[in-house]
């Protein structure tokens, strides 16, 4: 059966195919007050749901908050938490600040890069894991520290790191 011609059925209105991100952006905009001061919280909500802030969403957000596109783009690119391309399904953050450096976090990060075969800020080819440096998780008495999907780990040994990253790959996401 032929699908009804929606364009014609709606008269003169063109069909607006909404981008896949649209619903998430709308949810974020509905949830917070439409004031410029809510911008960062709105971006957090979008980032959390879509794992990035789609560049195409910037004018939509700007329009609703009565800001310029430049202002919104400026905020997205200023803060480390907001990404313009999607993070992997799992995010591994290894602390690289002084306290963790003092007990070998640079070496841990190098091992993680080797095991995942990506660089800092990189995402594995299958989109499973993103590796990011982070500058202090506030767990300095239990350095070295890291997080996986927000879960915090302290006194991380190379063996622990390997098994934690291995567990991510055993869920069938990271290709060896």
């Amino acid at each position, binding site marked *: 059966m032929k699908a009804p011609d929606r364009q014609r059925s709606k008269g003169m209105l063109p069909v607006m195919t909404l981008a896949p991100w649209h619903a998430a952006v709308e949810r974020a905009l509905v949830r917070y007050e439409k*004031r*410029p*001061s*809510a*911008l*960062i*919280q709105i*971006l*957090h909500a979008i980032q959390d749901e879509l794992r990035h802030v789609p560049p195409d969403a910037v004018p939509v957000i700007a329009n609703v908050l009565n800001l310029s596109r430049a*202002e919104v783009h*400026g*905020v997205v690119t*200023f*803060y*480390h*938490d*907001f990404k313009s391309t999607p993070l992997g399904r799992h995010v591994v953050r290894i602390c690289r*600040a*002084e*306290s*963790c*450096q*003092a*007990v070998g976090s640079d070496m841990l990060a190098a091992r993680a890069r080797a095991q995942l075969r990506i660089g800092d800020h990189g995402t594995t080819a299958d989109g499973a894991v993103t590796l990011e440096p*982070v*500058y*202090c*998780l*506030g*767990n*300095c*008495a*239990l*350095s070295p*520290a890291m997080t996986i999907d*927000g879960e*915090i*780990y*302290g*006194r991380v040994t190379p063996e622990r790191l390997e098994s934690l990253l291995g567990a991510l790959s055993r869920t069938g996401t990271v290709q060896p």
Partner: protein
Amino acid sequence: MTRVFVPRDSGALSVGAEEVARAIAIESAARGVDVTIVRNGSRGLYWLEPMVEVELESGRVAYGPVSADDVSSLFEAGLLTGGTHALSLGATDAIPYLARQERLTCARVGIIDPVSLEDYEAHQGYRGLRAALALAPEKIVEIVTTSGLRGRGGAAFPTGIKWKTAAAAPATQKYIVCNADEGDSGTFSDRMIMEGDPFVLIEGMTIAARAIGATKGYIYLRSEYPHAHRVLNEAIQAAVERGYLGERILGSDLHFDLEVQIGAGAYICGEETALLESLEGKRGMVRFKPPLPAIEGLFGKPTIINNVISLASVPIILDRGAEYYRDYGLGRSRGTLPMQLAGNIKHGGLVEKAFGVTLRELLYDYGGGSQSGRPIRAVQVGGPLGAFIPEAQFDTPMDYESFISIDAMVGHGGIVAFDDTVDMAHMARYAMEFCAIESCGKCTPCRIGSTRGVEVVDRILAARGESGAAAEEQIESSVVLLRDLCDTMVAGSLCALGGMAPFPVLSALHHFPGDFGIPSLAPVA
């Protein structure tokens, strides 16, 4: 019913506290014993986390570090009656690390259930606010001034003076902002307060609101602290329900609303004016001063912006009096400072003491030396902008003025230890690199200087491995350039990031010249 304490502090969680709590619940159910598990904050003895405590009639006894696998043997040994086990630590309060502290600001952290208002009230909670409500606002400011409290975020500006300025500024709307963007490596005392005793911060902010006539407060919390966020929200909710926040607080005419706003991963937002920009939803760009935030702060209105520890120290000052607090400490550094031992240290954790304790006492008597067992070669105090301090200066007392006299700073009280494997030239490079990553970009010395700084240190690192006159010449000229660059950044930057990032670099050069391939300087007289 026996109360068993298993921390919900994120440090404890990072080493398995959640699994331990679950195992205790399962084990006690299987044995049919009546146990209430209280999720407290951490006592700050992190090498013993997860530390489980049991409440006996004689007081609390501790076990640690406990793993989920130990739980069944702990019950076997009579955990609920304080039975002896290989992990027994005895009475918690008698553990020397804790017993020798002077906990004023962090008095309740690790002791109470952080989100129980009843628990908070039963431990002298809200006595400071009750005292404040009976006073004229000017009197509150006067008490805070007399206490000698100085900004614990790092700048050490007298808190009472800041409050006085904001109180005197005429405006229809004023704000209290708590700086909870604790970004300095080696620091976690703000996090411990927020996760372990959030009501003390809420109470401190409410007293501040009364003092200057503010009706709205924000806690600007870094996004790296999701656990603190949860605890704060639970506590704020409880305070609202019980009339400690909102309108007519405790039946007075005080109206104060409080909310938490989350940052987005930017170290610079710990700088007060960048923080205000971020709270307004903008890029965290540093503002020019003046105007001071106390006169034109958030949304252009008079705003008090104080660190978590500063605000959390206010309730006890109002409760016990300015003199009580001022009697701790020495010189112009009054009261106590929650110091944090981190990095390559055996017994990392929180040590709240009066100002005046020496670095050596902290590193060895409390910290137990390095974790690696090697000699401690250097410590960095005060975060990524703090100087590196060599062993020869470990007898310096921790107080603002003594540290300034050795070209160092106390900052937020974080102490990061490094053993003798540390490469100080590498640390100098990192200081510049961190500044380059986190610079807001508003002023040139910080934005460009930090990047050039990384390049210059890289040239030193490259030449250091070579021998011959050309390499020596390269190092010599690069060091001259590096010092010159540091001078420009110190003198020309808009805020402390660019203005102080050179301190770790210069202190590394000064105290550890050999790491840069340059001969030791003549001993300073």
